[in-house]
């Protein structure tokens, strides 16, 4: 049970990772990321219903996520970043609201099952009961994060990405367009959200509210780990997931949201830049 909780925690980590991607390049995050998860899941489900085979559905769903990410960047983020304001917080919240309402009306308010070819019967490993589906979630999360990290470290474009997060002006002087890099980060962050949606849907079912609780915990993970800490999110995600399943076991399932939120507020009190985050230097 603790292990399944920890595996769920990996999904929080994946979404939190999506926040880190955009924060690195633009110091902004998409507050409507949960709706991106949900919309991509719905879209993938529709692909399946239209007769698209499962393994083709995945790239289709991911592409949809990328497109949504780019739309968010264009409509909600770019202008306010140019104005050096924090209007993007409000605008991405608004985008989430619009997405939520659209999903409610297009796909309905009910939760729907998401078919999967991966077996869901529990297996026993060293006395721990775990389903192949849960394992597939873990594998999927680590694979996506691994590929993106490899991209950032091993390709020149990835290094350019890091350069923009380190010093935007200097990166521009190298001929690296900060605007394109920010678009790239939002695209990747949309891809990550879509992946999270596809991975988690078979377990949670698909519905407009499927990501509401999920996203809160992803926020918690991102802030506790620090918005610039790379793999710190994985550790915090696993920890939080495990903690949650313990809480819901001992205090009742209604309380399962509580530890993450308390953890978040406490972590902020002790280390405002996150447990794994770096302190920032104020400049005059």
């Amino acid at each position, binding site marked *: 049970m603790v292990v399944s909780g920890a595996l769920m925690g990996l999904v929080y980590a994946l979404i939190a990772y999506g926040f880190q991607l955009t924060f690195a390049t633009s110091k902004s995050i998409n507050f409507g990321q949960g709706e991106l998860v949900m919309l991509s899941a719905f879209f993938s489900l529709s692909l399946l219903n239209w007769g698209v085979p499962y393994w083709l559905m995945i790239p289709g769903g991911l592409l949809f996520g990328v497109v949504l990410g780019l739309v968010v960047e264009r409509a909600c983020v770019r202008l306010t970043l140019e104005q050096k304001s924090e209007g993007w917080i409000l605008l991405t919240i608004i985008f989430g609201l619009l997405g939520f309402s659209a999903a409610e009306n297009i796909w309905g308010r009910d939760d729907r099952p998401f078919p999967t070819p991966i077996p869901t019967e529990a297996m026993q490993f060293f006395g721990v009961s775990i389903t192949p589906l849960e394992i597939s979630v873990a594998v999927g999360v680590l694979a996506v994060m691994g590929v993106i990290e490899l991209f950032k470290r091993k390709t*020149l474009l990835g*290094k350019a990405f890091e350069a923009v997060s380190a010093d935007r*002006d*200097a990166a521009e*002087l*190298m*001929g*690296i367009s*900060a605007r394109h890099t920010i678009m790239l980060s939002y695209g990747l962050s949309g891809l990550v959200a879509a992946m999270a949606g596809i991975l988690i849907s078979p377990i949670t079912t698909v519905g407009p509210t499927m990501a509401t609780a999920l996203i809160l915990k992803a926020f918690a993970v991102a802030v506790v780990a620090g918005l610039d800490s790379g793999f710190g999110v994985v550790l915090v995600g696993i920890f939080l997931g495990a903690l949650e399943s313990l809480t819901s076991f001992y205090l009742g399932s209604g309380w399962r949201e509580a530890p993450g939120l308390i953890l978040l507020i406490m972590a902020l009190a002790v280390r405002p830049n996150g447990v794994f985050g770096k302190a920032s230097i104020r400049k005059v």
Partner: protein
Amino acid sequence: MLIVDNIHAGYGTSEVLQGASLEVQAGKVVALIGANGAGKTTTMRAISGMIKPAQGRVLLNGKPVQGYGAARIAKLGLAHAPEGRKVFGPLSVEDNLLLGAYNHLPMFFGFRSKAAHDLEKVYDIFPRLRDRKQQSAGTLSGGEQQMLAIGRALMANPKVILLDEPSMGLAPVIVQEVFNIIRRLKEAGTTLLLVEQFAKSALEVADYAYVMEHGRIALSGTPAELHKNERMLAAYLG
């Protein structure tokens, strides 16, 4: 190679540059000197597109580039080693250099081998960087960071290099070293626009120099001419 024609630029309401003009010919080292706040760095920033000039023209290789973004101007062959060095602190020395050549290298794979030759050339000029190529740039000393910034600019194989206060914050010995490097670049035929607070050292390496005052060019000439100029002597050379 680079012509700046009557540019006006500034930050917010304050107009720092009030019609500055200068010219850098291919293969020459040109120095831009002047008091603090005269507008030297602003001129550099306006040329490389970090700020947009309100008026005037910037011609790079005959092509007007004023109003372009910095990334676009960099692609056209201008490398700017900015004031304060601005190396990418968290990245390794080698990654910093590779990013200097960003415009010439493939985006995904094989960029390391393609850049190997240029990397070696830069490492030959700055052997200290070779020793530290895996170290993250933020941990370098000020002098090493300055060399990295120059090396990064060289990696672009640019038509023109803008070098803004390479001596800033460095110990005198290191400053000497930096000027020796500039001399070597000059011998290799690099086109260079150099902003420098140490007027005397700058004049020793430059082919031609401009003196800035209050956002305008007050004087210009070859170092020999400037050495004879009364006003120049009184104000800058003591």
